[in-house]
């Protein structure tokens, strides 16, 4: 049930939170099998999704592998750096 008096508050809450993407860049060192493994083991992606993203990195030079609130995406980038991947943050417009 919704009351009219709640409407202004709902409008205020509807202000979109800026979203960020985690970008993984191609590099000449990490193995394709390792990159796919990282996507599966860290993000929990299925094999098909992980392979698709890995091939996107390999063939186009980069892939957005996750998006969401900045703090959460920074956590992902830090984790991917831990795996030795070339990961950066990019604002989503």
């Amino acid at each position, binding site marked *: 049930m919704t009351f009219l008096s709640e409407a202004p508050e709902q409008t205020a809450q509807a202000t979109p939170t800026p979203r960020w993407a985690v970008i993984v860049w191609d590099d*000449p060192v990490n*193995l394709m*099998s*390792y990159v796919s*493994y990282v996507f599966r083991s860290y993000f929990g992606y299925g094999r098909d999704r992980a392979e698709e993203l890995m091939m996107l990195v390999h063939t186009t030079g980069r892939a957005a592998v996750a998006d969401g609130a900045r703090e959460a995406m920074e956590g992902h*980038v830090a984790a991917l*750096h831990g795996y*030795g991947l*070339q*990961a950066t943050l990019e604002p989503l417009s």
Partner: protein
Amino acid sequence: MSAVPAGFRTTASGYAIDLDRREAEVLVSLASDSGRLITANPEFVSLLTPDAYPDDPDASDEFARYTSDDLGRARVAELALLQAAPLDGGDFLVTAAEADDVLRGLGFLRLLLSDSAGEPDAESPEDSSADESRPMRSAVSQWLAWLQESLIAALDGGAAADE
């Protein structure tokens, strides 16, 4: 004498690979030297890590300040696992819980080996340029890549066997 190298195999507690004395020495000395390098120069790890915000140096610096210590500690721990390879040769045992860190450690050693002169594409290792130490580094890097790929295959095999 030569034999087809056998990669990691699944064991009751995790994974194992039979290394000869020379292979174990290479792995242990690389891991040990790299661990000392990081301990003495913690900022070195960050040099191999891209700017988190390519268009914002200040945000990248702040990100690095918050993450570099944890990254350095993790690297040292990963390299310590690699130093457990038996120097006399024999089975290098990796528990299931250690496998992820071992994969990271192997990858980090490959990043280190590639850093000073660039690395041939991992999928096209014959592409190389002149450098006296390069052939040795390239051979070691390819061997580390084989170790890494072999452990991933064992992990995948183990996962399949559990299903």
